[in-house]
């Protein structure tokens, strides 16, 4: 085994030669087929993020139409049938097709760069996850176009979603859930293995960037949350398609079983969405105050604590159901206590800002917006933790206001800040600051004008999910105000879209590290070469780019002719092995098609399950059998095995 060497400066010539070789090995293939065969995490991550933003746009348009419908009493833009489809598809899109995939996608895109490796651990599984997610979205929107959009709510409570919604609408919803859950699970397994085993040498647990921690934490949450909703949605589909009785009270089933399972997933889901947001905030705060975030151990512990507690408070979505009262107190206490770790993080950031030198660039503005909007959402969150108060505001517009404040404040603001912040790494160019500031201020105003009045509407008795209201309820003026706010949000997001579009084409060219940031992704070019790092960096401090003094310690001796990555130990990131990655393959895409061949036909006939099982097995066979792996075969089978155990060293 090799050990650490005395630092030897690398010759420019060597570096250039190795770069050329790596470029040949890792390059993407041209053409449509090459696009489908792509397994590089940068491409797949970008695809995730772009696709998710397309779904954000669609979900936002649906919200806009709904706000138009609600802008005055007894409006007739949408009839209840279309309204129910719109709000169901809006909620499902934002949760399953935008928020979770965009966060996992940012993780897939950023994590390998941040931890100093060349690709994620399971590149093909990763690509498979993307296509499965994409097909899930296509299935939902395809159905929606054909007037088959789900209409039982994004929460799909039975029996409304079983015996009382005939047709295929809810079936498409349930299948979309399964698609996106498979994708999320694939992404989280990939990310966990990558973060545990592929960190650059020296990146011990206490040097992992906070965003990587947040992705690690949510990946574990996904492992337990997503199977729950997948099992629940399969039960739901079975109830609908082959008449099982999981949720049928008349035959011993229980509608509340669905609610338990759905919220056991649904509450952690919220944390899955905003914990990466907290990761973004940490990086932006550190960079724009020019000092590391205060209280790193506390930040990490808070993230982990939030993840654990996130699973212990699902019942606070069910306070109004007939449940024993004693248990409810526990969930109130848990919902209250979870405010502490989040509070600690906010205090640490404010302390960091106080100790640093703030620069008011757009990403930092979005973080300030996060403080304002998210704090309001968090406070109303503590309010709804109380059983008696929640029973008054549950399922009203107060809750609509609450979770939009939490998710827009806790996830969208940091995400948009992150887009401005990492856009140079994305495209090689900076986004326009002027447009960015317009975007920020309009969004901040728009969000508050739209959602603040909803708190009051909730107090006035306006329930959620109503397609209209009567004039005598007096809800008209505040609803008109909220709809006007939605208009401001639309303008703000149009500015953002234009900013992305124009900056991508002719924004200022950014160097490798335009913000002077501290983490490893800024050590590569913008945008990075397909292999990320010509030489894997060796990490010696939590802020490697700030503490390096003119020299950058790196790993040498990696092969350049195959896709090789360095494997390191879980705790102290000591190099302990190498791993040869598979190259591009069409099979992840084809297997994903096979999964679609399972889930879509099964909506129409039980034989779909048989067809689908065969198709998936065939896809897996194509994926797994030798022609698809580029691994070198053993020297020669036969004599070598006979005498003594063969080690890889001996085989060389």
């Amino acid at each position, binding site marked *: 085994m090799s050990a650490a060497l005395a630092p030897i400066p690398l010759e420019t010539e060597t570096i250039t030669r190795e770069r050329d070789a790596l470029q040949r090995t890792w390059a993407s293939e041209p053409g449509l087929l090459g696009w489908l065969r792509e397994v590089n995490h940068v491409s797949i991550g970008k695809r995730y993020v772009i696709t998710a933003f397309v779904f954000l746009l669609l979900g936002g348009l649906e919200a806009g139409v709904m706000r138009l419908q609600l802008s005055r009493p007894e409006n007739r833009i949408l009839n*209840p*049938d279309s309204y*129910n489809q719109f709000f169901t598809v809006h909620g499902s899109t934002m949760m399953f097709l935008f928020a979770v995939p965009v966060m996992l996608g940012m993780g897939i895109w950023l994590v390998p760069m941040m931890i100093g490796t060349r690709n994620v651990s399971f590149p093909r599984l990763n690509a498979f996850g993307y296509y499965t997610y994409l097909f899930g979205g296509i299935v939902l929107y395809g159905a929606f176009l054909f007037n088959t959009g789900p209409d*039982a*709510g994004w929460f799909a*409570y039975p*029996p*409304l979603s079983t015996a*009382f919604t005939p047709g295929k609408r809810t079936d498409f919803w349930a299948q979309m859930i399964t698609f996106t859950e498979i994708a999320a699970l694939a992404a989280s397994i990939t990310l966990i293995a990558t973060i545990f085993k592929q960190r650059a040498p020296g990146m011990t647990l206490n040097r992992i960037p906070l965003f990587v921690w947040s992705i690690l934490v949510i990946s574990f949450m996904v492992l337990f949350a997503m199977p729950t909703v997948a099992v629940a949605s399969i039960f739901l589909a079975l109830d609908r398609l082959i008449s099982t009785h999981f949720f049928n*009270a*008349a035959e011993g089933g229980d*509608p*509340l079983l669905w609610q338990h399972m759905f919220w056991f997933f649904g509450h952690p889901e919220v944390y899955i969405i905003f914990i990466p947001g907290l990761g973004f905030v940490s990086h932006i705060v550190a960079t724009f105050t020019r000092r590391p975030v*205060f*209280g790193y151990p*506390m930040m990490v512990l808070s993230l982990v604590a939030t993840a654990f507690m996130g699973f212990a408070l699902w019942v606070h979505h069910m306070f*109004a*159901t*007939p449940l024993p*009262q004693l248990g*409810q107190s526990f969930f*109130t*206490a848990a919902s*209250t206590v979870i*405010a*502490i770790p989040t*509070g*600690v993080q906010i*205090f640490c950031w*404010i*302390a960091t*800002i*106080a*100790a*640093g030198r703030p620069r008011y660039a757009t990403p930092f503005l979005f973080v300030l917006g996060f*403080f*304002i909007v998210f*704090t309001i959402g968090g*406070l109303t969150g*503590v*309010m709804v*933790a*109380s*059983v*008696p*108060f*929640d*029973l*008054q505001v*549950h*399922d009203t517009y107060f809750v609509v206001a609450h979770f939009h404040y939490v998710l827009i404040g806790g996830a969208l603001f940091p995400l948009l800040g992150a887009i401005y912040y990492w856009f140079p790494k994305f495209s090689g160019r900076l986004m326009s600051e002027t447009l960015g500031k317009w975007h920020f201020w309009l969004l901040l105003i728009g969000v508050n004008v739209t959602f603040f009045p909803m708190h009051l509407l909730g107090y*006035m*008795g306006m*329930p*959620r*999910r109503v*397609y*209209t209201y*009567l004039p005598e*309820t007096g809800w008209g003026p505040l609803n008109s105000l909220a709809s006007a706010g939605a208009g401001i949000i639309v303008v703000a997001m149009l500015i953002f879209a234009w900013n992305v579009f124009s900056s991508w084409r002719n924004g200022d060219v950014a160097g490798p590290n335009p913000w002077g940031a501290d983490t490893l992704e800024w050590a590569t070019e913008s945008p990075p070469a397909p292999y990320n790092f010509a030489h894997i960096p060796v990490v010696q401090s939590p802020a490697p780019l700030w503490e390096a003094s003119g020299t950058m310690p790196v790993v040498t001796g990696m092969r350049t002719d195959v896709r090789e990555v360095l494997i390191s130990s879980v705790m102290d990131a000591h190099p302990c092995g190498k791993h040869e990655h598979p190259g591009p393959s069409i099979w992840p895409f084809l297997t994903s098609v096979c999964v679609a061949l399972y889930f879509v036909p099964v909506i129409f006939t039980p034989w779909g399950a048989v067809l689908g099982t065969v198709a998936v097995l065939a896809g897996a066979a194509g994926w797994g059998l030798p022609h698809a792996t580029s691994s070198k075969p053993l020297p020669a089978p036969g004599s070598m095995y006979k005498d003594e155990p063969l080690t890889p060293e001996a085989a060389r």
Partner: protein
Amino acid sequence: MREDIFHPGGPLAREVARFGGFLHVVSAAVFGLVMIALVLALVRRAPVSERGMRRGVALATSLTVATLFVFLVYDLSVGRTTGRAPSRGRQLTVIGHQYWWEVHYNDSFPSRQVITANEIVVPVGEPVRLELQSHDVIHSFWVPSLRGKKDLVPGHTATTWFQADTPGIYRGQCAEFCGHQHAKMALFVTAVSPDSFVSWYKGQQAVPPAPSDSLRAEGLKVFLTTTCATCHNIAGTPASGTAGPDLSHVGSRMYLAAGTLKNTPGNMAGWIMDPGAYKVGSKMPSHYGTLTDRQVRAIAAYLEGLR
């Protein structure tokens, strides 16, 4: 008509409104403190030292814990007072339907039981205990000015209670998404003095009077010979359907179709003719083409007389 959690009409809602006021004050204070801290952090002259940061975070965290503790204690005490159901008081059964409410005033003598729909009349100052069931999907019973909500889940029987102190009309609405007309599934609680309640209750127990004029008599005949009677019940007549609301005293109600239309003969006629025009997806079938204008007018006149 009241519908606002901060304009309570009874002790339960008042307790929660007081608690809500406390929450608002505390939340506003916390928000203000966080914002002040943020602004100070942004505009301070010299960067804060490591020790300053540690102290600030420790102080803020302990304040948070203390505030949450106070919140929790107050919340549990409010939960205790509002959660405990009284042992006395009238017992009602409320059954949720897509998209209306069926209300039974239970009595040990079946003949004295009163069945009505969408409108609950209660005496002031007396607790009312509710047993909640659902006929189809999940609904949620909520009258903001009287108390928080409780879900009506198929296969479960939920219990809740409320009490009105001030006479008045309290509007409420189904609070769990239940299908196309979740938006038009209102209910009204009318709190009256105990004396007026007794006379109202007697009136509801009585068999409605026979039609007084020929138009109404014709209305009854049409009601019984067409499909009306297969879904609706009218005491004292052969009409005994259970799929739709009990119409024995429909003339005494304020609204039709769960708070959708004012109860006038004209609205009634229009509603019978084409319910879908007022409430898309209503489970009441249309009679456009099966009833003549005169028949509909006769039915509306007859129903108006059922007080």
